[in-house]
Structure formats: C-alpha cells, structure tokens
C-alpha cells in the first residue's frame, strides 16, 4: 500500500488497516457515491433558479448551454453507472487496496464550506442568467462565470472528500476498465442523442404491424397513417410515440445485457449475444400484440377495461413473460449454454430458523425441492394475481379476490413443502411492534396520502358482493400478505444477501446491512409510503432477528394490517388500503 500513497502524506495514513477497521471511515466507493448524490441534489435544487424559457431557448449560446447541460447530465449518469459496473466486474486489486487507503482519510470540512459557497454563488448567476429578471452580467460573461463556479464546486467537493493525490491514484487504478467506461459513455450519449429520431419511424412500424394483425379479425377497421389512428365502430386508438415499443426495447436491452454480464460464465460467447436481438424482436412483437389486444377488448364493448386496466398492466406482463422466456430457454439450448442441466448439484439442507437440524437426514428434509420457490412463490403469486386482476379491471380492482386464492394456494403448498421447520411461535413483542407500525402508517398516511372514501365502484356493488369483496381483501391483507411478505423479504432476501444457501444463515447472525437492504426493497414496494415502508421493514426485521422466530415478524405484520383494515373500514379512510 506504501507504493500507492506518498510517504509525505502519511500523517492521516500512518493509520494501519487495523486502526482503519477500528475507526472505519468511508471507502472510495462510498465517497464516490456521496459525491454523485451531493451533485445530484445540488443540480436538482439549482434547477429551480433557472428560467429555461428565457435565453436558454432563444439565443444560440443559450441553446448550446442547455444542450450541453442535458447531454452532460446523460454522459455523467452513463459514466457513473458504467464505471461502477466495470470496476465491479474487473475486481481490480489496486482499487481494493486504494479503497482501504481511503478509509484512513477524514472528510475535510473547510473544503466542504468552500464547495457550499460555490454552489450558493451559482444561484444568483443562474437566477439572472439572460437578463429577463434584471441584469447581473452580460449573457456570455454569465455563462463563463457559470462554468468557472461549476468547475470550482466539483473540484472543491472532490477535495473535501479526499486529497487530490488520492483521486489521481484512483483514476489511474481504474486502468483499462476506466477507459472502456469513458468511451462507452461517450458513445452511449451520442447514440442516445441520435436515437430521439427513432420514436416516430418505430411507431409507424408498430402501427403497420397492428393494422395487419387486426384487419383479418375486424373487417370494419379503419386506419389513418397520418395520425397513426386505428378505429373500429366503437373504439379508437392512436399509436403515439410512447406506444411505439421502444420503451420495452430499452427495458429488454437492459435485461439481456445485465443477464449476460451476470451469468457470463454460463454462456458461450459470442454466440450468446444473439439473445439481445432476439429479446428485442420478441418484446417488439409482443407490444404490437398488446395494442391489437387492447383494440379487441375495446371493440368488444369493454373500453374502460382496455384503457384503465389492460393497458397499464399488459406492457409489464409482456416484458416479464419475455424476460423469463429468454432466461429459461437460453439456458436449455446447448449451443448457447455452457452448463449441462445435470451440473451444479447443490447439497440439500433443511433448517429450523436457519439452523441445521442434525436429527433428520438431509435427504428427508427438503427432498431436492426448490427452497427459493418455497419462500418466494406465495409473494409472487400475490403479485402475479394482482397484475392479472388489474388488467381485467376498469379502474377498480373488481377481481381482487384472485390474490386471496392464488396467495393462499401457494402458502398451503409452501407449508406442505416444509415451512413447518421455521418457528411460528410469537410473544407479546410481535403485536406490540405491529401497533407501533400501525401508528407510523397513520401518521405518514395523514401527511402523504390524500383522504379517500370507499370507492364508488365498490359502493355500487350489490350488498353481498360488497361484503364478499371486503372479506376477501381483509383476509388477504391480514393473513396471506403478512406470511407471504415475511417469508420473501425476511425469510429469503435478508438471508440471501448473506449467502446463496440462505437457509444455513441463522436469523441471529443477520447484520445491519442485510436488514437495511431487505427493508429498503420492502419499502420500495410501498409506493408513496416508501419511507414508512423501510422503517416498517426494519421493525419487522428486528423483531425476527432478536427472537429468531418467523412467527414474531408475521404477528407484527398481521397486527398492523389488522389495525389498518379496521381503521379503513370503521372510519372510511380508504387511502390506506
């Protein structure tokens, strides 16, 4: 490490790695992440000071500046993502050493103050840029000052996070992957700029495909290629740019590339690259089929279902189906896959709350079953049934009962496959944690969610149907969801972060990071209430880790859902359901 860092700068670095571990500071990766976050927040705030309709959109220099900031942002986002991925994939030893060195360096507050001053100084320059709010400086001078202050803000932030020498060493240490990332980001930004021109021609291709698909089925179909509108006697669809299929193509590109990078050892290259165009073609065809189905549903007398339910779900259903198809089929084609189906045998284990049970032979316990499926399928069934039900709805989840049936069926299957080995007992702690979560959701909901009464569609149901719907929703919420989510997020994900063979991880051994990460994923699934969701995940997770009983987390979850359910029904606060 000595060769990595000048001896003259050693005072803070005379700390040994042992000291560093005793008093750990941020690593290189953490500092880079903080820099990206700070710059992002500052740009977000400074945007409020800019009048984009002024000279930035009328003068040549202004337009140049605007284009530069747009493309610059895209370039830096691409570069940051690519650099992180390349460095991760290359696993550079030099960077690993440098990471440790960074842990010995403190954050330098004076530079942070300077950085803050630069950012504050940027605000009036941006505010008066162009002169329509008064004049600070002529426009060209303002632009120059903007450049100088922006560069100063970036440099001072770097200096605040670590000495300049360390940053130059970090740049050198990225080596070839760094230059690849730089050139890839440049190419990606340029191609991205050009690709804006793709929307219209792609939408025209999609329009023609849909027209050819529908003409034999609906003889009365009329089409207007100018507006790209397809009309039947009682329904009409315009295939606008956003329906062109490019969004799905983008998603599929990301998926295929990520899949091939993650599992590159299992594929034969360059043959496997064929999966990328195949995936793109597949999702493009599925998008045309989606729009054709949309027209058919609308034409058959269900325009509300077509518009509100089907269109919002069908794109995701098609993408998920195509992605899973690529993942499964590609691995069964020997021409593409290196791994024969019989390899990768995994020892089968069964555990009680993560601990092996030596009194039972391993082969009897799980019998070669897919334990990941046992933990995940109940939640996946809930999600899939929810998507399917919403695709059939016309703005209200009429078929919400599908979730109950699918979730309960998968839970029964999961218990038959061996979930009885987990401890399902619980004490007073679980329900108390549930009450705390309920209070948190009430508080957060009152701030974040606009009040809603019972949906009009539900009120219009016949009485018995309404009670049936509410009973099904309540049963799903209080019984099925808590078990399914706790199995997936805490039973599987929290331990899977630690080890691939997640069942060997005792709950008591789960540290802070797996708990936080699994809670973050859990929170992200709760939409506008994501912050409360993260805190809730932490509470349930702590209840489980402390007691080593799955039942404790489930009891907490069920209690909070039961209280929420009661609150919704008694006080007519449907925004929480």
């Amino acid at each position, binding site marked *: 490490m000595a060769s990595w860092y000048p001896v003259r700068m050693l005072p803070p670095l005379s700390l040994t790695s042992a000291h560093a571990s005793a008093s750990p500071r941020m690593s290189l990766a953490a500092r880079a992440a903080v820099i990206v976050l700070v710059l992002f927040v500052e740009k977000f705030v400074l945007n409020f000071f800019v009048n984009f309709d002024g000279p930035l959109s009328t003068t040549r220099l202004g337009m140049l500046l605007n284009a530069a900031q747009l493309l610059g942002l895209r370039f830096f986002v691409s570069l940051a993502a690519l650099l992180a991925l390349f460095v991760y994939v290359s696993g550079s030893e030099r960077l690993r050493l440098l990471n440790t060195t960074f842990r010995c360096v403190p954050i330098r507050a004076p530079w942070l103050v300077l950085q803050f001053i630069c950012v504050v100084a940027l605000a009036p320059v941006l505010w008066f840029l162009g002169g329509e709010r008064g004049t600070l400086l002529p426009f060209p001078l303002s632009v120059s000052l903007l450049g100088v202050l922006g560069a100063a803000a970036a440099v001072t932030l770097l200096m605040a996070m670590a000495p300049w020498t360390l940053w130059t060493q970090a740049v050198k240490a990225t080596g070839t992957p760094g230059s690849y990332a730089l050139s890839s980001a440049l190419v990606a930004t340029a191609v991205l700029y050009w690709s804006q021109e793709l929307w219209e021609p792609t939408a025209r291709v999609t329009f023609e495909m849909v027209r050819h698909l529908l003409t034999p089925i609906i003889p009365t179909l009329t089409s207007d290629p100018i507006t790209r509108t397809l009309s039947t006697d009682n329904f009409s669809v315009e295939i606008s740019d956003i329906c062109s299929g490019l969004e799905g193509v983008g998603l599929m590109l990301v998926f295929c590339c990520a899949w091939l990078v993650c599992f590159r050892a299992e594929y034969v290259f360059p043959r496997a690259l064929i999966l990328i165009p195949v995936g793109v073609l597949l999702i493009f065809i599925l998008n045309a089929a989606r729009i054709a189905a949309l027209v058919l549903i609308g034409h058959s007398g269900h325009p509300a279902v077509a518009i509100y339910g089907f269109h919002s779900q069908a*794109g995701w259903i098609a993408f998920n189906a195509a992605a899973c198809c690529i993942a499964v089929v590609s691995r069964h084609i020997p021409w593409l896959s290196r791994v024969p189906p019989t390899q990768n045998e995994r020892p089968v284990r069964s555990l009680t709350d993560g601990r092996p049970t030596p009194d039972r032979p391993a082969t009897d316990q799980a019998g070669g079953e897919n334990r990941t499926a046992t933990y995940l399928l109940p939640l996946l069934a809930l999600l899939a049934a929810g998507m399917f039900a919403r695709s059939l709805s016309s703005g209200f989840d009429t078929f919400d009962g599908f979730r109950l049936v699918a979730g309960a069926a998968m839970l029964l299957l999961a218990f038959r496959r061996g979930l009885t080995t987990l401890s399902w007992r619980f004490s007073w702690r679980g329900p108390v944690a549930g009450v705390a979560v309920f209070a948190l959701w009430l508080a957060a909901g009152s701030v974040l969610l606009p009040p809603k009464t019972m949906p009009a569609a539900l009120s219009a149901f016949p009485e018995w149907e309404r009670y049936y719907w509410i009973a099904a929703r309540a049963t799903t919420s209080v019984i099925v969801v808590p078990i399914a989510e706790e199995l997936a997020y805490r039973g599987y994900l929290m331990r899977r972060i630690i080890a691939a063979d997640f069942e060997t991880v005792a709950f008591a051994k789960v540290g802070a990071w797996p708990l936080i990460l699994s809670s973050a994923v859990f929170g992200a699934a709760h939409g506008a209430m994501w912050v409360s969701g993260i805190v809730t995940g932490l509470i349930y997770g702590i209840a489980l880790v402390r007691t080593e009983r799955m039942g404790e987390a489930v009891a907490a979850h069920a209690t909070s859902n039961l209280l929420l359910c009661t609150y919704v029904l008694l006080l007519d606060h449907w925004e929480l359901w």
Partner: protein
Amino acid sequence: MRKVILVTAALAVASLGSAQIGFAKDKDKPKPSTAAPEIDPSSAMSALTLLAGGLAVIRARRKIR
C-alpha cells in the same frame, strides 16, 4: 481482455437502453384519444419484484436439478 470487450459492448447497449427509458421524450405531444403507453411507471415496482423473484426461482430450480 475478451471478457472486458464483451462486457463493454453489452454495457454500452445496456446504458443506451436504460437512458432511452429515462429520456423517453423531451417534448410532450398533445394526448391522443386513447393512449396506450407500453410501460406504466406506477406498476413498475410490483412488476420488477415479480420479475426478480421469478428469475431467482428459475435459477434456484436450475441449481438443484
């Protein structure tokens, strides 16, 4: 080196694809009579959770065969 080149190519395409989603369209058009956007952002989390979970199950199934 071969791996790095492959990964470079793959990630360049990936970043292009992801950026394509993020910057779908700079200027909005008037809304059509019945618009059918392919990807609904409000369903993104549940759809991606479903996909990630499904892939985890598929991979685990492969391992124990």
